[in-house]
């Protein structure tokens, strides 16, 4: 394993994007970064630029206007990458399943690797999902999974 590859697995950077949920999961993701849960001990950093990111953390049921933004963010993130759908509405649409302007889940737009349950997802569950995502990232790096689409 080259230096660059190892560094990427040991220090994955997270891009967080809300696609129209209720905020509950977003504040729990932020709570993960703060002293009590402190996800930075896994080398993770929340950043704003998709070109620097390895892990995409997506919340919300995705609405029509956000769809294009989400596709663009996914395209801008360099391979290999993993996508985590956080919360019930990111997985299936959840409580917003019958809302007119939602698509009902992140996987309707981009391939998802890890689903985190809960409405709102608890920080423990999010950290669990992130650790699972890291294993997938490592598999992808070593060629175990060819690309993100194969993960579902």
């Amino acid at each position: 394993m080259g230096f660059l590859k190892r560094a990427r697995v040991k220090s994955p950077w997270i891009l967080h994007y809300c696609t129209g949920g209720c905020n509950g999961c977003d504040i729990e993701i932020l709570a993960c970064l703060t002293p009590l849960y402190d996800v930075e001990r896994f080398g993770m950093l929340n950043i704003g630029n998709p070109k620097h990111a390895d892990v995409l953390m997506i919340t919300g049921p995705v609405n029509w206007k956000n769809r294009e933004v989400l596709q663009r963010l996914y395209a801008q993130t360099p391979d290999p990458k993993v996508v985590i759908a956080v919360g019930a509405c990111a997985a299936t649409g959840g409580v917003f399943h019958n809302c007119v302007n939602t698509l009902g889940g992140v996987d309707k737009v981009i391939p998802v690797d890890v689903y985190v349950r809960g409405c709102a997802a608890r920080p423990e569950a999010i950290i669990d999902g992130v650790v699972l995502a890291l294993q997938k990232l490592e598999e992808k790096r070593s060629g175990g999974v060819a690309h993100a689409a194969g993960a579902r």
Partner: protein
Amino acid sequence: MARVTFPFGPQHPVLPEAIQLQLTCEDERVVEVLPVIGYMHRGIEKAAEANLYPNNIFLCERICGICSFIHALCYCELIEGMMRVEVPPRAKYLRVVWSELSRIHSHMLWLGLLADSFGFESLFMQCWRAREIILDTLEMTTGQRVIQSSCVIGGVRRDIDLDMEPGVRRQMAAFQKELKSIYPVFAKDYTVKLRTVGKGVLPRDQAWSLGTVGPTLRGSGWADDARTLGYAVYDDLGFEPVVEIGCDSYARMMVRLREVVQSVELVIKALDQMPEGDLTVTVKSFPEGEGLIRVEQPRGELVEYARGNGTAYLERLKVRTPTFSNIPALLVMLPGCELADVPVITMSIDPCIACTER
């Protein structure tokens, strides 16, 4: 000077949610702002017509996850008003306790994000660390951290019993201790003042004419707070609105900081005065006619309107949220400011886009 227009958002590290501000700049100075909304729209109002009316509580809670309890409270009080249900006094006190706890957690979250927006990273961490005490209290009393689901039509679902009450008091004492170390940093620190005093000025008369609500309005010298209307039991607790006259970002920050102190006192007072009794009354009929209610959310006044037709489904549910009224104020605050102050000024109205667009 050439004008440059560039987008701020929808995906931006300082914004937990998606909103776009199209900023037109001359050099480093902002001259025009155009907010573009619609990234968070789900269509909750329409979905509320398709759900059974008690199930709408769960939908209303998820209009916004930060102030979810107050959204549920607002919907329940609205339907109770339409059906002329009298809520037991103990339930009213419990509603006050939980809505004040969610106000504290919302304000602490906001204070942290404000500190982050001007690059004071360690203060951000301290605020969120103190906030965890409140979230623990919420989890202890309701079973969930952010979305409590403890309000039902006709009362509340859970109780703060005698075993739990000393725990809540202990948590509040621990929080007050944390707050004591955070308060002076916001109020007196040189760098905090440098980034907030005189930034994003909203003159007193314009604050009223633009229809702003909540801390944005109270920061400009108006003593306007929906809690003075006396829903739940705020009139028994001797509530007085917090007002600042500075009209700038610093004044709005101080309103929220002082409201945190006040809310802690309200929680303790509500625990002291809480009467014994039932938690719910049985509700049998269906909502009929029209109803309107105003309650105070952490961001300002929340107005809900509903029309029922005597069946289990509502004909119409209309929600007007505080950020919707506060966004026009950004068009007064932002032009003329430095580009580096845009995050601070945008944060100073406490934008909650999930509320605004529903």
